[in-house]
């Protein structure tokens, strides 16, 4: 898959995304938009497009960084407890400050996400039997454990309903005034670009990267901070998007090898394309209703993930 084709797909899907919805707006209307249509464009359709692109790109990059750092193809924010820890963080912020602002929620949730991911990485060090499949299993179990703690407090404070709203991603609620936080991901993506080469080196292990003159701890920490922040931001604005960080980097590495610097733009682009596609599918399949993105990505993502697993097995 050439980057050019990917880019063309990206453009087509982006434009399509703008014109799918209950309110009919065709590309021809663009030049003489009524007041009404203009409003819908600006308040709902454009923000939705922007957040889809950013979420898709940044979640995929997070997955890629985590896979590089842990040297395991099946690690991602969903399979390392990052998402679950962030969710616990949001809950804690809601309980501690009854009227937490988005900013406060984000900071606390990011700290939790960071702690959770650190804990997972520590766990990895401790596991003797580093089977490629065993590690995501531990990660998912670890996530479940964090969830059980979240459920406990949510149940006590009657917040189960709010918890489940973060459980499945939904872009239909994205509109002006509620999504701007996602822009925080843009500088994070840029930082990942700057550090790309270093992540690749760090992925070769502490000893090797130290002997290559790299400050291993520092680079790993930067990577984890990027992952924690991006995950939290996406979680707060659209909710959990399962598997995205897992499958997109894997697909890219199948046809493109494993050089992080080379793969970053591909991964970001494919992530956005994949998410746009899932979103558009969700919007037209049961039109005029909408299937939340959590479900479409969950279904398509699980199937692709299973395929990746089987494929790996065949070549083992």
């Amino acid at each position: 898959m050439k980057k050019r084709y990917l880019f063309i797909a990206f453009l087509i899907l982006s434009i399509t995304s703008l014109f799918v919805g209950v309110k009919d707006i065709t590309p021809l209307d663009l030049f003489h938009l009524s007041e009404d249509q203009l409003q819908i464009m600006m308040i709902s359709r454009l923000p939705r497009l922007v957040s889809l692109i950013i979420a898709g790109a940044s979640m995929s990059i997070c997955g890629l960084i985590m896979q590089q750092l842990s040297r395991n193809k099946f690690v991602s924010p969903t399979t390392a407890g990052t998402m679950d820890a962030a969710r616990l963080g949001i809950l804690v912020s809601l309980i501690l400050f009854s009227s937490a602002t988005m900013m406060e929620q984000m900071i606390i949730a990011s700290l939790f996400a960071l702690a959770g991911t650190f804990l997972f990485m520590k766990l990895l060090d401790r596991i003797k039997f580093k089977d490629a499949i065993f590690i995501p299993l531990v990660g998912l179990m670890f996530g479940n454990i964090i969830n059980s703690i979240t459920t406990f407090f949510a149940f006590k404070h009657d917040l189960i309903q709010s918890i489940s709203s973060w459980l499945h991603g939904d872009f239909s609620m994205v509109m002006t005034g509620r999504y701007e936080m996602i822009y925080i991901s843009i500088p994070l993506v840029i930082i990942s670009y700057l550090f790309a080469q270093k992540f690749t080196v760090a992925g070769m292990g502490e000893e090797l990267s130290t002997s290559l003159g790299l400050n291993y701890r520092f680079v790993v920490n930067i990577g984890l901070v990027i992952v924690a922040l991006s995950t939290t931001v996406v979680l707060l604005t659209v909710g959990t998007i399962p598997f995205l960080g897992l499958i997109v980097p894997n697909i890219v590495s199948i046809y493109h090898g494993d050089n992080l610097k080379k793969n970053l733009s591909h991964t970001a682009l494919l992530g956005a394309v994949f998410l746009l596609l899932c979103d558009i599918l969700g919007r037209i399949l049961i039109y005029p209703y909408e299937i939340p993105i959590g479900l479409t990505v969950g279904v398509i993502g699980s199937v692709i993930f299973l395929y990746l697993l089987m494929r790996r097995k065949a070549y083992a």
Partner: protein
Amino acid sequence: MHKNIKMGILASIAVILIIIFLFTDMGNYWEYVVPNRAIKILAIILTGTAIAFSTVVFQTITNNRILTPSIIGLDSLYMLIQTFLIFAFGSSSLTVMNKSLNFMISVGLMVLFAGLLYRFLFKREGQNIYFLLLVGLVMGTLFQSFSSFMQVIIDPNEFQVVQDRMFASFNNINTDLLLVSFVLILLVSLYFARFIKYLNVLSLGREQAINLGVDYNYVVKRLLIVVAILISISTALVGPITFLGLLVVNVAYQFFKTYQHTHLIFGSILISIIALIGGLLIVERVFTFSTTLSVIINFIGGVYFIYLLLKENNSW
């Protein structure tokens, strides 16, 4: 301390807790209260046994102490079945009201699912048990996506019914179902008896087990089916308690410090009975129903487990 003394201590605690649970705080209607409580106790003993027993076996097969059998997606499947029944027929429909039918459907589908999963994966050459688990886990996520989608669509009042099913409960246990479960578990245990001698050897790992003459695939397949049946029965009877097994089996390992499975199995069964009755006493008499037992068990199980992970210990 000798292991039999330890076992005696556990048994005495269990008996004392049962007596406290049955005969304290009775109020004026003891002829009504005591039989009611006795049913609860029976349900607890039954599910506690099934869960503890199957978790020990499962962890031995997988050579790992961080995994629980529900990881193959049985919990999520149960929730999907319940959500679907309510989604399709409404909460007042016969299937939900008619507990026996619901029980049969749930157990049947869960065992069927596990059977298909095993069948499919054991057919493949060079199977790796972790591979099986990961596929199960991904299927679980898929089920979860579907259920949370349905949960969003259904009426909020009906959601309440679904939510009740998300947490295990020992209230309103149907005596007929209890009897059926008892007979089923008894039959499964009798079938299992001829495999018990293999457990110690299996804990040495696949290669050593084969070297020592265990027909590995034959034995493991059958043990996994036993595990799936036990978990399905207990889940359909009271609901999912994901971390009970994890908690009690690890406590048993710490307490007995042995690899002998006869001690481990009976020890974990007693510990799970203690945990459930003790937990129920706390929930009903201390918190007075402000929270659900399974939530507390999962919480304690989760926290205890993170403690185990953090402690300097490399037994996984």
